[in-house]
């Protein structure tokens, strides 16, 4: 009798185990299924809006057929480009500093602040850029948006740069120093080439991180109806256009919003995949 109950409880426990495992599989399936759902839906809704005029035209007023987000795509490229130019030197410098001299409490502090900054809402950073570059000059500008985006890129660049330099085997660093090279030459001529793929990954991910940002641009770049290329004037931006069109009441504009969303998602995913491809040869050679 006792044996029967024991075996029964074992059976129950095994059933529970199977059920529990299935439950966790369901959770993982749900999470990744959401991505597929989103991808498929955005593709179906957005693909119809994609045509040459979508990519090469400026927005048209409601009721006028056609019109596109060409100026937004150009604006995004310009702003992210400037953001990268602003943040890469500071971020990479910080990362190299942390990798080279990152032992004391000061370095730990920088690292901690950087991690915390990564979690600060982008809209707060946008407000900062506003108080710094919009309020004093009295007009919106693409440059102020680039500053906001650049700050958003910093934590990721700092972190990946440090990791990239730390990932170089210490024998290489020690060998170089033992041969009499200075820290500067070691860093620039020996470590940098070895760290370059991981460094590129970090930059690509940082660009991917900000290319979908909308919130800090609302009151910095502001948006524009024209082919604006002056960084000190208000400029159009793709995700900003998607936002504006999405909350408009016009079906025609909703269509363009879906098209823009599709472009955004494809760009961000390609960047994420590119980041992994760049990293691969490194992973293999180890």
């Amino acid at each position, binding site marked *: 009798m006792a044996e029967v109950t024991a075996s029964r409880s074992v059976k129950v*426990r*095994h059933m*529970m*185990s*199977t*059920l*529990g495992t299935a*439950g*966790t*599989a369901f*959770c*993982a*399936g*749900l*999470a*990744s299924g*959401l*991505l597929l759902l*989103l991808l498929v*839906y*955005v593709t179906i809704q957005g693909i119809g809006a994609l045509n040459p005029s979508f990519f090469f035209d400026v927005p048209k007023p409601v009721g006028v057929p056609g019109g596109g987000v060409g100026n937004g795509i150009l604006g995004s490229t310009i702003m992210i480009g400037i953001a990268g130019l602003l943040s890469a030197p*500071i971020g990479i*410098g*910080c990362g*190299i*500093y942390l990798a*080279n*001299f990152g032992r004391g409490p000061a*370095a730990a502090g*920088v690292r*901690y*602040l*950087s991690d*915390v900054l990564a*979690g*600060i*809402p*982008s*809209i*707060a*950073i946008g*407000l900062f850029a506003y*108080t*710094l570059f919009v309020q004093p000059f009295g007009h919106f500008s693409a440059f102020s948006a680039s500053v906001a985006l650049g700050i958003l890129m910093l934590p990721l660049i*700092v972190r990946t740069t440090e990791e990239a330099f730390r990932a170089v085997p210490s024998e290489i660093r020690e060998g170089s120093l033992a041969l009499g090279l200075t*820290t500067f030459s070691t*860093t620039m001529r020996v470590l940098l080439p070895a760290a370059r793929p991981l460094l590129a990954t970090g930059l690509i991910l940082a660009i991917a*991180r900000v*290319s*979908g*940002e*909308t919130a800090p641009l609302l009151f910095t770049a502001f948006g524009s109806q024209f082919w604006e290329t002056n960084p000190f004037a208000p400029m159009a931006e793709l*995700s900003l256009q*998607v*936002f504006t069109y*999405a909350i408009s009441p016009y079906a025609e504009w*909703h269509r363009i919003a879906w098209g823009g*969303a599709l472009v*955004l998602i494809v760009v961000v*995913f390609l960047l994420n995949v590119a980041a992994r491809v760049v990293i691969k040869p490194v992973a293999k050679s180890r």
Partner: protein
Amino acid sequence: MSVEVQTGAQPLDASPSGRVIVDRALVARLKLSDVSFRIALTVAPLIYVALIVALFLMLAKGSSEAFAKFGLSFTWNSVWNPVTGQFGGLPFIYGTIVSSFLALLLAAPVGIYAAAYLAEFAPPLLSKTLGFMIELLAAVPSVVYGLWGLFVLAPIIRNYFGPAVQSVLGFLPIFQGPIYGIGMLTAAIILSIMILPTVTAISRDLIQAVPAAQREGSLALGATRWETVQNVLLPYVKTGIFGALVLALGRALGETIAATMVIGNRPHISASLFAPGYTLASVIANEFTEATSSIYTSALIELGFLLFIVSLIVNGVARLMLWTIMRQR
């Protein structure tokens, strides 16, 4: 050195007596290079830290006008009426907290158990693929989530989910009132999807890093794999998972565009989850460019400053927790 001298092979920089000749000028030059490189490199972190300090100061300065006028009552005053110049932040604080915690409530179980599957049960290739897909969920631009929430999720809530819930649980105050589709619940669902990758990725890494002895000990004692996950692995990493949840909460608190598109944007405190609400971030997004007076702008910056301080604390705590755990390993 002395060995080489004995074998007759003279090192280039050694004198016949075996003593090393040092080119002092060269050494000085190398040392100078090292020192100046270090000083030059220190500039970058200094700029970085200065930026973060400036961030704090500029937001504080921008909100000083509103703070001088309303003081601390700003945080518990619930009237927001720009026309009459009344600015109270409570509806936004309430909306931010409710939507974020609800999102966390939805995302935590799914995220943690998904992580358990990826770390413990899934075959390696499947685990990698699903893990990458879930991480991509974090890369989807927030405006895309907003768009999907507005045109897909909101109608589902309005036409199917809402009425169904109301017919069963309609006696609860949180499910009463008209269903607009956009509102607190819709925002919470969208936010929960957005923070799911944070919970899953960190939890998975934590579970994978549990020492094999813990896992093997439990299995050797006769526990099933599920019991091992439930009774050994998850309790082992609970502090870390708590840190991950706090981090995810920080994400949800500051999420702007997606929340703005689906929460309904009404500065009103309502018990119903179907009712529209407003968050700190979304009121800034909506009204900042339309703020007509300097006190209006300042009140909005103060809301941003509040959000900044809260996420500073939340992220600071989360990072500290995760750091201590990583250091124990």
